[in-house]
């Protein structure tokens, strides 16, 4: 049984994520740094929470960390790794589902997962995660 299934089967597990740990996703190593507040919040989670590293391909390429309950993620369980306990990590390349922004009003364009042929090549090198005033905040990048 891998870490992911362990975390999914035991959502109340309270393993505290390590400081500066490295995890592998799609065969690539990611250096993960959680602040003390983030580790404390992760250890107290009652249900699995997914940290999605979203790479949005558009006129520019935007990086965004989204933290959401497991039920809300579009990522399959096989594409998630555990950061310790019920805190899971995944990578989601996306594109806009439609470009007719006039139809969208003030809403952000709906996104869909982009079928990347070599996902390993696009996996970030590092992730930093913080928990501040009840909100998860994070960033990721491709250079050390």
């Amino acid at each position, binding site marked *: 049984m891998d870490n992911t299934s362990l975390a999914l089967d035991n959502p109340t597990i309270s393993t505290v994520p390590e400081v500066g740990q490295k995890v592998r996703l799609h065969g690539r190593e990611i250096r993960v740094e959680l602040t003390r507040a983030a580790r404390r919040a992760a250890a107290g989670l009652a249900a699995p929470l997914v940290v999605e590293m979203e790479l949005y*391909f558009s006129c*520019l*390429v*935007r*990086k965004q960390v989204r933290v959401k309950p497991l039920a809300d993620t579009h990522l399959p369980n096989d594409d998630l790794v555990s950061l310790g306990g019920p805190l899971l990590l995944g990578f989601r390349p996306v594109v806009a589902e439609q470009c007719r922004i006039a139809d969208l009003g003030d809403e952000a364009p709906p996104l869909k997962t*982009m079928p990347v042929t*070599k996902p390993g090549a*696009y996996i970030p090198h590092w992730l930093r995660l913080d928990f501040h005033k009840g909100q998860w905040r994070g960033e990721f*990048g*491709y250079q050390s």
Partner: protein
Amino acid sequence: MSTSPENLQQADPRMDAWLNQKLDELLPTKLKEIDEARTPSMAIIATKGTLDWAYPPFILASTASAIGWDTSIFFTFYGLLLLKKEIPSEVSPLGNPAMPMKMPFGPKWFQGITWPMPNLIMAGIPGFEKVATSLMKKTFKNKGVATVDELRELCIEADVKMLACQMTVDVFGFSHSEFIDGIDYVGATYFLPVAKDSDVCLFI
């Protein structure tokens, strides 16, 4: 029926008709299958080294490679600077009169203002390029936009072929040690057939 040359000759019109009908039936499907089985390709010619012009080749190349296209970028003239170990790019308002001036700080209404700065003034003020570069980098960072260095890294990881124009290297007096690893130094005679055979060829 005998297969004498006379009989075959008589059968020709019917054979031709049969063959034409079969081709009409089968060829579109077959061509579609061939087209779907082949890998699309893109060749980009990057000629500019300013920060704003550094984004398009790397964004398009990393996106094309992500969806499985064979992608090459040919860096020539000032585009060669995008392959230096430290990308020296700055924003230049010269030749870009449509460049909007926006502030990356303050309340949303303030950030939404497009400052009416005439191009002539932007180009003439000493240090303006540094300020504009700083503002663009700050704006992009605030919006989570990947940096040029990151996009270049993505391209390399995704096997985009990075081709440097050897002639430009020689003319500008650069040495290979000034550039990142993983580059092929080629000439136009190498790149032109690549461009000819590509499905998409872009000059940036």
